[in-house]
């Protein structure tokens, strides 16, 4: 391809040797440098697209990101800064047939996890039956005594789950972790699709790309089903820690999309009758359901951390007495623990009497002596994760770490073995990503969002996060990751 205009030429010719394929599985290109079947229409389209047109649209999308203020906040010593959301214009593509299996696996997993959480706060059958060790439960930071004996509506604790998936070099999709506390990113999934439609509108006409935009409606229905009142338009509030939270953009976005109130802790109060009210210009108004985006610890200073100024005193009381629905339920985080994670396949077999559809990444639990010895002997080959951190903080990536870092971690593991687990470093998959007019492979993962309330729902695809640094495996936005639009393509219905 030769362009002579004033626009820089973007080298979209992926099949040229410029695009290096390494050991990892590439989502769009096979080992013979041919587009995978689901990606074929995209490459045909790009090959026929004038580079100047592409450049103009790319600029327009960049400007749109700035003015739409799609941003997230990065915490640093230099103060909090708002960063524009890094969006890559090359989509990640998954055929529908493959996706349907993943979707079934995600539903299975969340169902089992909810049965598990409900069991832990009630009879604890799984412990008594010797399937789940009592030591793990006792060492859990996220198990809340305050929740004992409660069964929320539908027996569901985690209503919104963000499950991280990765693909290894043989093409197998693994579950990397289940985010059951306050998973974020879904707004970026929705915004990415809006941007993509501006960028490649023709693709959406000629190709069966399944839509993603019913998520806010599905979320609304899932939340409305938790309302204690019979009113068919319950008052739903999204509870945010405020504008300094890194996901504030998303809180506001979802409230807007659902027609819900966006509230901060100080906007709410619980009266002696245990009813939750918001402070409005005409006095107090009852709130039926709260979609909280605040961690348990800060939710209610009466029940949890007394120094929390973000929460609402009395909220736990109101919830326990059935006066308000809360999603995710307080205490749901007990299953969002990297040690508990290792037991999920067993949890699925125990409650559902089914084989897990999606495999876990093999995991070594440092609480068991034999596994710990293996981990300590193989720190240079493993990724070590603390049980209760999120966002990629506090991890050791063995092969990339220095000897000193590995020694520090060995010490940490010996001091508190329950708090650590290790996994082999996966060669996670890549997809072509645009950098300075050329495409380069970058590692990525996928976070679909799963809803469970009176019914189960999985987003069509999810948020694809991509490590922007060459060779990097860390995709978290807080660590400099970016994102791509995710296309589920129906190849048969076409």
């Amino acid at each position, binding site marked *: 391809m030769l362009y002579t205009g004033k626009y820089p030429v973007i080298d979209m010719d992926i099949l040229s040797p410029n695009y290096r394929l390494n050991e990892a599985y590439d989502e769009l290109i096979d080992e013979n440098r041919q587009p995978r079947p689901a990606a074929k229409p995209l490459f045909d389209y790009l090959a026929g697209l004038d580079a100047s047109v592409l450049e103009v649209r790319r600029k327009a999308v960049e400007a749109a990101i*700035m*003015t*739409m*203020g799609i941003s997230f906040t990065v915490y640093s010593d230099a103060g909090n800064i708002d960063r524009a959301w890094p969006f890559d214009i090359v989509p990640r593509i998954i055929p529908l047939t493959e996706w349907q299996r993943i979707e079934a696996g995600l539903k299975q997993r969340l169902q089992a996890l909810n049965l598990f959480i409900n069991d832990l706060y009630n009879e604890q059958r799984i412990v008594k039956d010797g399937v789940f060790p009592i030591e793990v439960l006792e060492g859990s930071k996220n198990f809340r005594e305050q929740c004992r004996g409660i069964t929320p509506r539908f027996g569901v604790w985690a209503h919104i789950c963000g499950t991280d998936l990765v693909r290894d070099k043989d093409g197998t999709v693994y579950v990397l972790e289940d985010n059951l506390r306050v998973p974020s990113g879904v707004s970026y999934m929705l915004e990415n699709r809006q941007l993509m439609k501006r960028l490649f509108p023709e693709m959406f006409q000629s190709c069966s790309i399944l839509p993603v935009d019913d998520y806010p409606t599905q979320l609304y229905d899932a939340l409305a089903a938790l309302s204690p009142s019979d009113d068919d338009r319950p008052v739903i509030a999204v509870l945010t820690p*405020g*504008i300094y939270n890194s996901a*504030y953009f998303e809180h*506001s*976005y979802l*409230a*807007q999309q659902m027609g*819900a*109130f*966006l*509230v*901060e*802790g*100080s*906007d*709410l*109060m*619980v*009266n*002696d009758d245990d009813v939750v*009210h*918001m*402070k*409005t*210009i*005409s*006095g*107090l*108004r009852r709130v039926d359901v709260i979609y909280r985006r605040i961690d348990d610890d800060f939710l209610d200073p009466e029940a949890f951390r007394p120094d929390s100024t973000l929460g*609402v*005193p009395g909220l736990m009381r109101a919830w326990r007495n059935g006066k308000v629905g809360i999603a995710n339920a307080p205490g749901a985080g007990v299953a969002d623990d990297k040690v508990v994670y290792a037991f999920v396949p067993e949890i699925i077999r125990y409650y559902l009497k089914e084989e897990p559809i999606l495999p876990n990444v093999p995991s070594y639990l440092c609480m068991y002596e034999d596994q710990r010895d293996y981990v300590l002997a193989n720190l240079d080959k493993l990724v070590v994760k603390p049980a209760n951190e999120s966002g990629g903080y506090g991890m050791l990536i063995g092969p990339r770490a220095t000897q000193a870092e590995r020694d520090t971690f060995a010490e940490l593991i010996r001091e508190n073995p329950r708090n650590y687990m290790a996994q082999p470093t996966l060669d996670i998959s890549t997809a072509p990503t645009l950098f300075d007019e050329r495409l380069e492979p970058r590692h990525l993962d996928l976070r679909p969002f799963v809803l469970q309330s009176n019914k189960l729902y999985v987003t069509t695809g999810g948020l694809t996060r991509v490590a922007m640094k060459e060779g990097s495996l860390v995709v978290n936005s807080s660590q400099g990751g970016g994102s791509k639009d995710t296309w589920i393509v129906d190849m048969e219905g076409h």
Partner: protein
Amino acid sequence: MLSRVAESLYWMTRYLERAENTARLINSSTQVLLDLPKGAHFGWDVLISVAGLQDQVKKRGIKLDEASIMRFLIEDEENPSSILSSIQFARENTRTFREVLPMEIWERINGMYLYIRQSAKKATRGRGERYEVLNGVIERRQSIVGLLMGSMSHDIAYQFLKLGRNLERADMTTRIVDVNSAVVLPTDPVLAVPAMERLWMSTLNALSAYQMYRCHVGVHVRAHDVVQFLLKDPHFPRTVHHCLDEIEGCLSVLPSNQEAMRAARHAWRRLDRMNLNGLAPVVLHEYLDQVQADLGAIHDAVSRHYFYLHHTPATASGDNQ
């Protein structure tokens, strides 16, 4: 409507209105300066006192030359009333209630912020560039007002936007009228009369009111006619009279509005009674102060009745509905 959100909406439009009016004030003062005859004197520091920022300027030791004052009014982030700060506050406020506004409003406000961030330096470089940049601010702000009118339901949220806008606007109109009281004119009446006329013409221009004044009052620009027009004309949207009308309209659809309505009517009656013919500048200045105090009283009543819950600690038990 949440009390916190109502308060943020209200301040958001106040900040935007303030940014626009400051831009207008600077542009029209620059025009005044160009038109003044020899022997007349205009000090830039009058803009500081119009904006009520004397104390801050004195405390921070800001020089009173044109360049320093422009930096202070346009891009100084330590000055909470500078154009840049006002727009930044408006943007920060908007972030807290994006869910009640049409999506494009946020995009426009964010765009306006990015614009002033990028061009504030340029605006302090020279008069020509300053004029251009400040006009850009006015245009962007106007497009936001237009978008709000055309794309937002005239619901309770809208009333708070309108309330903030009109209170700030009425206040700024009185301040802009007050600028002229600080101009020292030549003693020779042959020079002074036309100078006076040009002065008031520029006041009208600052408020985009010159043409409407000519249509509805006349071609001659006389001090008391202009003051009369800018304070008491019921139809021009930047007059105190018109703003009070709008304020009353907003209040009338809000719940528990008695006290705020009372304050608005009080402001009305006082304005009505003011005889503006043949006023000495000192008396006019005093009148304008009174109007500003009355507007302040409306603000106090609004904030007591609609924003107070937000400032109440969560443990207090309030009345239901």
